[in-house]
């Protein structure tokens, strides 16, 4: 038998067996990849990230403005305005923390905005020495951002009237100055990151290939990282003491000094996570292309994506049973906090193993040969 015949027969056999084995009930025998991954990036950028910044940036500007007003006129009304705006902006922030990309990553946006627990000693030291640089990428992360404001607005005294008396005292002028410095810093960094997003938008949405540095892969990795660390670990795991031998760490609750809002913040965060996963427009119910629709396309069904969504909604249900104030919850019944942690962990497993397998997206920073 000559060479050509042999190899032709081989190929023929392989081809025939392959055809006979492929599920004939499948209607889409001539599949062409018509899933345009760029549409995920466009939807996420145009309908989630940019609107979230459009919402957040003015809120931070207002917050800063109100702090300036307060330092001019230290009235109870002005203090309460500052506090309300702080809560409002902090809620909005929950929708941005997961996008640790580009300028945000470069400027340590997330570290500067929300490193908690805040360091009281460092804040006090900065105020007393009046010699600090909030911009240098050093350990001043824990002396600025929302958690530092949390301390300065709610942690200096037990009641608002006492806080007001504190700020009205001329000896404490340095505290007012620090309050303004922190707010200015927040606005400045937010402006820079926001402007950069507008600038890079067109380039960002076209980078939809499957590589370590593509927008799609970075977004996916950041999303999972946030879900695991930002949400599961920081908001529940660490305060509930699961990393510290059952020694609960109530001081690690987000917004510790005004902890009545800790549940609100956590719920915002999981809404943000869910919204990103299903591609839901910011502050709206309409949805577009997303990791969910991509998963459905790749698996030809919705089994995996609905399992993920079920973990999200189960987590929400559990969080809703908690006290508004996580500090109280930890003291009263920490088991419920751990339950949420465990439920979120089930989500981590699905995202990190099942989803990444199906999408064949490699985990960040891994660069090595395979075989």
């Amino acid at each position, binding site marked *: 038998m000559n060479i050509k015949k042999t*190899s032709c027969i081989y190929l023929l056999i392989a081809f025939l067996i392959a055809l006979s084995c492929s599920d004939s009930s499948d209607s889409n*025998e001539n599949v062409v990849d*018509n899933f345009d991954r760029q549409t995920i990036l466009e939807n996420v950028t145009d309908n989630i990230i940019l609107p979230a910044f459009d919402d957040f940036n003015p809120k931070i500007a207002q917050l800063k403005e109100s702090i300036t007003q307060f330092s001019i006129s230290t009235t109870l009304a002005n203090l309460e305005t500052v506090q309300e705006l702080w809560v409002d902006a902090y809620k909005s922030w929950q929708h941005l923390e997961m996008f640790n990309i580009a300028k945000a990553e470069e400027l340590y946006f997330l570290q500067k905005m929300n490193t908690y627990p805040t360091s009281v000693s460092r804040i006090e030291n900065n105020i007393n020495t009046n010699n600090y640089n909030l911009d240098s990428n050093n350990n001043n992360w824990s002396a600025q951002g929302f958690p530092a404001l949390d301390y300065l607005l709610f942690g200096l005294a037990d009641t608002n009237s006492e806080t007001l008396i504190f700020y009205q005292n001329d000896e404490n002028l340095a505290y007012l100055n620090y309050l303004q410095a922190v707010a200015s810093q927040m606005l400045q960094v937010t402006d820079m990151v926001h402007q950069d997003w507008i600038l890079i938008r067109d380039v960002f949405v076209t980078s939809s290939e499957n590589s370590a540095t593509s927008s799609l892969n970075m977004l996916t990795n950041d999303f999972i990282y946030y879900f695991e660390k930002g949400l599961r670990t920081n908001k529940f795991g660490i305060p509930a003491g699961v*990393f510290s031998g059952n020694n609960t760490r109530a001081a690690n609750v987000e917004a510790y000094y005004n902890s009545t809002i800790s549940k609100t913040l956590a719920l915002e965060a999981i809404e943000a996570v869910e919204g990103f996963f299903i591609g839901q427009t910011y502050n709206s119910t309409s949805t577009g292309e997303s990791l969910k629709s991509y998963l459905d396309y*790749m698996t030809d069904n919705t089994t995996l994506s609905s399992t993920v969504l079920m973990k999200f909604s189960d987590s929400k249900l559990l969080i809703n049973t908690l006290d508004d104030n996580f500090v109280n919850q930890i003291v009263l019944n920490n088991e419920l906090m751990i339950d949420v942690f465990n439920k979120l962990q089930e989500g981590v497993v699905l995202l990190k*193993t*099942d989803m990444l397998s199906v999408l064949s997206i490699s985990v960040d920073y891994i*660069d090595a*040969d395979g*075989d």
Partner: protein
Amino acid sequence: MINSIANYFNKQSSAAPLAVFRMFFGFLMFISLVRFWSKGWIESLYIEPSFHFSYYGFEWVKPVGLYTYAFFIICGISAFFVAIGYKYRLSILIFFLSFTYIELMDKTTYLNHYYFVSLVSFIMLFIPCNAMFSIDAISIRKSYKTVPKWTIDSLKLMLGIVYFYAGITKINSDWLLNAMPLKLWLKSKYDLPFIGHTLMQQEWFHFFMSWGGMFYDISIPFLLLFRKTRSIAFVLVVAFHITTRVLFPIGMFPYIMILSTIIFFDSNVHYKIIHFTIKILEFFKMKTDNLKLSFSQVNHYKVWNTSLLIIVVFMTIQIIIPLRSLLYPGELFWNEQGYRFSWRVMLMEKKGNSVFKIVNSKTNSFFYVNNDDFLTPVQQKQMSFQPDMILEYGHYLGNHFKSQGHQNVAVFVESYVSLNGRLSQQFIDPSANLMELKDSFKHKFWIKPLNDEIKGF
């Protein structure tokens, strides 16, 4: 029968194939090591991690801080000396030892093709690859025209074993009936020009590649063996490996395989390669008179009988080792008992998530471990779905926390793994205290069985 075996082992054959093989192998290894270094992998894989995963029985092989670079330098230089055939016996010995040491330092980086390199360099210890066209031949002013035929055949057999087993292990229901994991991997190559959005998405193409790969691997050693099919076989080899190079991040492996299979060709092809190499050397104004002179000599190289014996035993072991997985119960892809060192390549898309829980067994107080504190991302990725690595890391954690003063330390793992597109399921018995388990070659009863059956090898 005995006579014909004796006759075979006395047969002589041209020494040119060994010379060409030595040259290509040495240069490719040299390039591989330089590439490895230039990518910063010595730093990130061997120096940065504070903990390293050891092979059973080789716990004493560890990176040695900055001296690790010395191993790579020694290995690289010896590879270069092998290529030019300078003090060949010593060079290949040093290469074999240093390369194998490097590979034994951390299980995380196990790759079948590194194992292949170690095996080939072991064989090369016992065969005269410097018999002709080498600095050695020039310096002793003696070149050999022929070498025992079996020395060349031993390399062919090694390549044959690799291909054949790589093919046989593809005969399983995931690979052939579900086109897994190729379906996942090929679909994700949507960004390739022209074929990304079309061919790569076709279901028939996933099956074609799976079945084609299986037939290719099983038949290629035989197609290379027979003169009639050899040329088309080589075309297939090049096409196959270039395809894998385009589709998957497999480093130098395709080039190593392509150049290795040249050994199957007749000596006239090898002489052509040698003459072409001489022309290149002359182009760079190097003196090649001595090299050319050596071809005029007619000497027959004799190899010690001990070498022959070692190679026969070695080859027998190589045929047996990949089959050891048959001795274990349970699903091979899931348990990975006997998975390494058996030419199972690209068979699994396996991802895991393993969270370790340190428990005080008296008070039942516990805490979870942040794996980032102990392992690099690459190590975490590999450890998460490989039972022996989970156990080794568990012991490391237990001992670490004991030494920090924790009492009654028990270590548990909450581990979930997804295999070839199946939904993830629990991997390790969460009630098994890893500190009470020992790694051995026995069946790992503490792995929870896969809720599915994969038929085949």
